[in-house]
């Protein structure tokens, strides 16, 4: 015993005597022979694809040997296996370019989530009661096959519906093919922040129903109409990487970014110039810029071609959109419109982009068309520094939207593939009620959420790290190609890949689907590998296909709610961390401070700081937001960057049943939205609701901010 031990001994004698060692015999689990051949402590990297959004970033997983408790042959035990430790961008991937956003980094927690479903479950209690019992895969598949056989027997194959995410790729192709062979209608896709309006507009303007790729890297002047392209829209990693190069990594100086929005979003915060604009009038501003350009002969109106033709009055020089008229409608000063237009024209390549709130207005389609026309006018289509469309291997499969489940003859059997429309739809759409009426629902998600809680059967999927994955990035790089990757690690639980389960089911049906589908997704992917690969560098088929549409006339945005009774625009937005709420179960993202507020683990209501002062609302006070369709209560965040006539709320919180990390935290602003549609499409106009606010009480400590002051300099000096 050396000195140190002696002193330790004297230090602890008193307490040590009191604390007796109470044994903790760890229950001995059996140990399986390892299935991988890994050098312990040495990392290997395996490619995979981030599944969280449609960007389809190629990532690499750092795999190291570790001791995991797993199920093998229905038996729990310990195994030394390769475990994914971290996700990083794949430097070889055209989209991620070796980078990865916060959400993508956190995707790994899906695999290791403590509340992930480990085996199939069957409902025992009332529907929605959340009472399930564990069953075996054989029983589960038998049950599903039974219901499908019953449909076939009744010759009502059309009553089968599949609800999935709108992720373009071969997986969706295979699912659609499966449905087609069964005799069911096309898959139903659902995503709250879908880009259907923009796709529709691109189809009209350019003949491509696809999201554009922005060549920010070479652009000299970028005007963004509400597009949160550095935050959560489209392909944020690729766009951010390009933005980084646009800013400081290229010869010839730094481009200018102008952002028009009613709220200082994360992207707007990075703009050189923020243009505050009335909600729903972004299209007017775009046409105002076009008017100045045309009127001053900076570019010929004809340059816009088909995109211009889609706008009423384009050919005559947009006489209704003079800077003065624009000022009146948008609130943007006429001189500023004039200046912006001249700058836009004077700094080619210049590009405009639109997404997000402007497209979630009743006139969203018009706004998108207006911006497309502006791009076309500037000659930014398919040019360096402009917008382009990544060649796709094949046309996107036909899909239906959620209304197919709500309005038409309700399906008798519904298969839900990791989608949560119950949470992400306005309460007024009554999605939960519609689902309750469906006789049999099978859910394939890895978690119990608001939607799968209504299922009769839950067949948990592998996590993406455990299964074959593929993606066909729709946007993000000039030359994106389909990518696929094998499993990074062996499964932890008694789960199965959804698509393999369906393929298995297709063979087990009373009359197996014919002609036979591949046995597994892996087989399908590898069979396809040689077939439909696109040659790199194929140019986009812009201006080719698609029906010509009649020119659209500007209509003022329609808002739900009487302005006198509901004086505020309600601007929900995709949370930087939780996206549309589908990531609220990941603790890293819950604890990620929101970029513009630094809030964590909570919902908050943003309100202009001066308006709040007038209303006697202080930071953290509980306020109630009421629309004609419901109310939510949350803590106030006084935001200097929000229009005084608007309140904003992040989407993502307010889950009632979505794992330990999301349940019971915050409120869901989507619930109080009006079920309005963007005219000309079936997309939800999620930014078109008006609300009123009331202060309910003082701070209830639900506003959890990581950061303190919102301003860098203390304002008070001396006696002021």
């Amino acid at each position, binding site marked *: 015993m050396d000195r140190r031990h002696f002193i330790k001994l004297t*230090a602890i004698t008193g307490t040590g005597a009191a604390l007796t060692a109470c044994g903790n015999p760890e229950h001995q689990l059996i140990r399986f022979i390892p299935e991988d051949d890994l050098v312990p402590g040495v990392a290997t990297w395996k490619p995979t694809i981030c599944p969280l959004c449609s960007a389809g970033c190629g990532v690499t997983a750092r795999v190291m040997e570790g001791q995991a408790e797993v199920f093998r042959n229905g038996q729990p035990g310990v195994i030394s296996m390769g475990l994914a430790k971290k996700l990083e961008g794949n430097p070889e991937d055209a989209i991620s370019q070796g980078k990865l956003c916060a959400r993508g980094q956190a995707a790994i927690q899906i695999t290791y989530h403590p509340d992930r479903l480990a085996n199939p479950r069957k409902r025992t209690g009332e529907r929605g009661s959340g009472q399930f019992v564990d069953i075996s895969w054989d029983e589960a598949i038998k049950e599903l096959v039974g219901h499908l056989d019953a449909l076939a027997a009744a010759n009502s194959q059309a009553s089968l519906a599949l609800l999935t995410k709108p992720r373009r790729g071969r997986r969706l192709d295979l699912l659609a093919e499966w449905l087609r062979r069964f005799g069911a209608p096309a898959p139903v896709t659902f995503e709250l922040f879908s880009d259907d309006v923009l796709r529709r507009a691109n189809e009209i303007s350019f003949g491509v129903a696809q999201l554009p790729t922005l060549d920010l890297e070479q652009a000299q002047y970028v005007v963004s109409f509400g597009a949160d392209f550095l935050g959560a829209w489209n392909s944020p990693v690729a766009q951010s990487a390009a933005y980084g190069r646009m800013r400081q990594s290229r010869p010839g100086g730094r481009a200018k970014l102008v952002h028009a929005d009613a709220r200082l979003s994360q992207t707007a915060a990075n703009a050189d110039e923020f243009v505050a604009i009335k909600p729903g009038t972004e299209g007017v501003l775009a046409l105002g810029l076009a008017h100045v350009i045309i009127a001053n002969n900076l570019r010929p109106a004809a340059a816009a071609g088909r995109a211009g033709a889609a706008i009423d009055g384009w050919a005559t020089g947009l006489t209704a959109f003079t800077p003065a008229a624009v000022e009146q409608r948008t609130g943007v000063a006429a001189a500023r419109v004039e200046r912006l237009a001249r700058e836009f024209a004077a700094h080619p390549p210049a590009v405009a982009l639109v997404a997000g709130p402007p497209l979630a207005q009743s006139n969203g389609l018009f706004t998108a068309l207006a911006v497309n026309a502006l791009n076309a006018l500037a000659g930014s289509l398919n040019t360096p520094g402009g917008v382009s469309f990544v060649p796709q291997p094949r046309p996107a499969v036909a899909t239906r939207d959620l209304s197919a489940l709500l309005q038409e003859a309700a399906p008798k059997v519904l298969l839900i593939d990791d989608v949560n429309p119950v949470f992400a739809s306005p309460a007024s759409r009554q999605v939960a009620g519609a689902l309750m009426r469906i006789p049999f629902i099978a859910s394939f998600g890895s978690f119990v959420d608001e939607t799968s809680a209504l299922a009769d059967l839950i067949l948990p999927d592998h996590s993406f790290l455990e299964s074959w994955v593929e993606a066909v990035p729709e946007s993000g790089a000039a030359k994106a190609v389909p990518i696929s990757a094998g499993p990074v690690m062996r499964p932890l639980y008694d789960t199965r890949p959804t698509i393999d389960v369906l393929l298995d089911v297709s063979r087990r049906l009373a009359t197996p689907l014919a002609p036979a589908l591949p046995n597994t997704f892996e087989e399908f992917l590898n069979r396809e590998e040689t077939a439909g690969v696109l040659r790199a560098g194929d140019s986009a088929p812009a201006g080719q296909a698609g029906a010509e549409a009649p020119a659209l006339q500007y209509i003022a945005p329609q808002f739900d709610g009487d302005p006198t009774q509901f004086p505020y625009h309600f601007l929900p937005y995709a949370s930087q961390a939780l996206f549309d709420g589908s990531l609220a179960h990941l603790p890293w993202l819950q604890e990620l401070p929101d970029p513009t507020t630094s809030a964590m683990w909570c919902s908050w209501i943003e309100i202009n700081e001066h308006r709040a002062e007038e209303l006697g609302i202080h930071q953290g006070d509980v306020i109630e937001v009421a629309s004609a369709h419901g109310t939510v209560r949350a803590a106030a965040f006084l935001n200097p960057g929000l229009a005084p006539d608007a309140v904003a709320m992040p989407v993502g919180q307010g889950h009632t049943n979505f794992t330990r990390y999301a349940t019971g935290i915050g409120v869901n602003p989507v619930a109080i939205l009006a079920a309005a549609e963007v005219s000309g499409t079936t997309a939800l106009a999620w930014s078109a609701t008006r609300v009123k606010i009331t202060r309910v009480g003082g701070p209830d400590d639900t506003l959890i901010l990581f950061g*303190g002051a919102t301003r*860098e300099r*203390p304002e*008070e*000096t001396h006696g002021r």
Partner: protein
Amino acid sequence: MNRTLTKPIADDLVRPLFQTSVWFYAIVFAAATVVACGGAAWGYQVWNGIGSAGIRWPVFWGFYLVNFVFWIGISHAGTLISAILRLVNAGWRRPVTRCAEAITVFALMIGAMFPIIHLGRPWLAFWLFPYPSAREIWPNFRSPLAWDFFAINTYLTGSVLFLFLPMIPDFALVRDRSTGWRRTLYGLLAFGWRGTTRQWNRLESAMQIMAVAILPVAVSVHTIVSFDFSMAAVPMWHSTIFGPYFVAGAIFSGIAALIIAMAVLRKTLGLEKYLLPLHFDNLGKLLLLMCILWAYFVFAERLTVWYGNEPSEMAVFWASQRGRFAPFYWTMVICNFVIPFVILTNYKTRTILGCVIASFGVLIGMWLERFLIIVPSLATKQLPYSWGSYAPQPVELTIMAATFAGMILLYALFSKFVPIIAIWELKAGLPSRLDPALQVETSLLSTRLDTEAFSSEAERADRGQP
């Protein structure tokens, strides 16, 4: 003649050691209970983690450090005051020194616990001791916390000895008057003291040297406690004024604690004959002096910050001046300055009660001052993004209550086992005992001491008793 004078003094002062009232048990019981709760709270905190307290990012120091500084400040009551008075040979100090020094020792013991209580891993507190804990790595002597270790230990050692040495003759006295276990106990404590002239002379020499030595130590202790703050580049901490500011504040709160302790002892132990209004008057004047000095320091500190107008400092400045800490700040100003100043400047209100009221104000005010030094600065550091707040949790409040109860407990036990007034010093200070030349000087200092307490001496002399 001598004995008739001194024996009643000894009888009076030894009596509390032999007689125990129910109140004593009640107080000890109540205080011990609160201390036990504090112990339980600390145990809870150690077991669960320091997060049981309210400290957080960025306010990493909270009530524990506030109490640390507060109690170390209180500890300046005794040794420092007693040493000063001893050196200037102020006659009126004699009944005051021991109860003052006892405050020092107990407050130091309590204060020195807090750095350990507040540690994240208190079971490793011994790593602060100067020894090569791991492979020749000693503690970092550049750390103010290491200085604290040396300063507090030096001061504690010095104060314990300074308290204990003059107790030896009194223990001998109690030993000779007691029987049974008390005789054994006090016999041991008396170290075999007889009272030879050699012993008296050595004791007095030693006390003189100790008084000289302990004065700079006392000043250094609170200076070093202030260094805990001023060494960090935290707004409104990084100040050269902190050393004297803390020392002044410490003496200020120390005197207040002493006045309260004396008033309590006076009532509970029936020491009205020894702790006279004169003592309270004198201490009250001293308190007034420190009150003005403290106000001066606060003004000087605040003025320079305001005038300098450095943004990060101004943030702290306004946070306490009119922001969220303003209620505490203005309470502090009222308690520390307005109340004592009003009461103590007027000789009519500078009574025992008046002094006690002022002292309570000062204790509250000085506690708030420590709080206002620590928390607003940490909550409002240079980068506004990292601004935060702090609220104490039950664990902290319980432990804080336990320290006050601990002080009461220790003091009650001390006054139970030790004559709370140094008997021999009091005897040696009798006017008749003094050198005639010195008598004049002393009587000037303690006119009322002569007239009130020792009128009996004159009476007896008149009656011609020996």
